[in-house]
């Protein structure tokens, strides 16, 4: 379908330019590392109770590193008004959304693959939950976060100070997802007995993901309209 063809073209363009410069990914990964460090001295990790904050920290990293990437995704189209170039091209706006979403999601996954093991190592965390569930939760949470984030980044990009606006819009809307995945992660990492409750959270997040992805997909036309 044409929708996917152009979306893939767009994603390819973004990923290719990232491959050339490697700027966003490196920054995201180092940023993730820095967040870990900042947290480590704000909240003493030697203290054993702070192990409990690890699920929180994982998601704080994903959220902050994600915001950096999301911000760029549409701001980078402002220079020379290349966004107009995409808008006058014969494709649906949803194609633009899909393309940007794919590129952002791919980069987010790379960041996670690098930074989460690093985090476990630094906080000396012994993983003894279910890896499959853990990956699933990370995947679902990132999916929802990036799906909504891409949408809101497009919305925020219309404002002059978009990199400031984005977190403001993003946090409140994604809180349900974040609460859900933090709870699920917590259970999976520390307390596998309560797995059923984690699964309930996962279902909730999945539902939220699907609903919002569809809604964003439908509404993006109005956001990108000039």
């Amino acid at each position, binding site marked *: 379908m044409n929708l996917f063809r152009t979306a893939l073209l767009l994603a390819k363009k973004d990923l290719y330019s990232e491959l050339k*410069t490697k700027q966003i990914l490196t920054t995201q990964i180092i940023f993730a590392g820095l967040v870990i460090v900042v947290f480590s001295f704000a909240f003493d990790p030697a203290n054993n109770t702070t192990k409990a904050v690890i699920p929180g920290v994982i998601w704080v990293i994903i959220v902050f590193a994600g915001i950096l990437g999301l911000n760029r995704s549409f701001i980078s189209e402002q220079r*020379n008004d*290349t966004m107009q*170039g995409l*808008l*006058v091209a*014969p*494709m649906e706006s949803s194609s633009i959304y899909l393309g940007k979403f794919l590129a952002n999601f791919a980069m987010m996954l790379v960041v996670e693959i690098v930074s989460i093991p690093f985090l476990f190592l630094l906080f000396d965390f012994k993983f003894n939950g279910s890896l499959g569930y853990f990956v699933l939760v990370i995947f679902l949470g990132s999916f929802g976060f990036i799906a909504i984030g891409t949408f809101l980044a497009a919305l925020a990009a219309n404002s002059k100070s978009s990199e400031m606006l984005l977190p403001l819009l993003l946090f409140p809307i994604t809180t349900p997802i974040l609460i859900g995945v933090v709870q699920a992660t917590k259970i999976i990492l520390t307390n596998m007995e309560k797995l059923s409750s984690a699964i309930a959270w996962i279902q909730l997040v999945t539902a939220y993901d699907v609903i919002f992805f569809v809604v964003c997909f439908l509404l993006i036309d109005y956001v990108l309209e000039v």
Partner: protein
Amino acid sequence: MIEIKKLTKQADNKLILRGVDLSIKKGETVAILGPNGAGKSTLLKVLATLIKPTSGLIKINGLDLKKDHIEIKKLLGYLPHSSLLYDHYSPLENLVFFGNIYGVNNVEQKASKLVKEVGLSFFLNEPVKNFSRGMIQRIAIARAIIHDPEILLLDEPHTGLDQGAISILNNVILSMKEKGATTLMVTHDFKQAAEICDRIIIVKNGRIVDDFKIENRNLGFVSEKYGLQMEGVS
């Protein structure tokens, strides 16, 4: 080809376009003249589907601009003030990307041919960000015509071009005209307008105040007509 009826555009409380009626036939080359702030660029943006009109009807090739915008976009080649190029990409990469989006066949070959045509083959693989103004404008022109559009919307296309590039551009427009393309060109340069256009529209204050045909590159005639409209305005 293009039918505009009672087009108005309002931004905040300001009427930028106040009822534009215009019909342009296939193959015409139309220059849009007018003082600064008249609404020329706005008119072009509306046609390029970049701005929604406040009211009015636009039909392009018989298709309604609102409904069949995808079909219409395929026909349009739009060259605005900004270059619409990715700074860190080379001319080739830029053209290939946009060509792909428009579904052009054999896009690499076509792109290098175009870059050569605009005289930048030495710079084929250098990032656009270091280019001079005129060089960027050349690539921007190539970008606008990569998919052989049937309708060209050009906003001051001669800006920053040197003499050689101006004649390249004029030749491109004329050769596309031969293939049946329609061109709308906003410009302040009467000489170029007279050189390549066969019809002149003068816009003032968001309205079309004059609309006439010219022949034989009659520069004097254009200046005279323009002067007539601008009388008392300076």
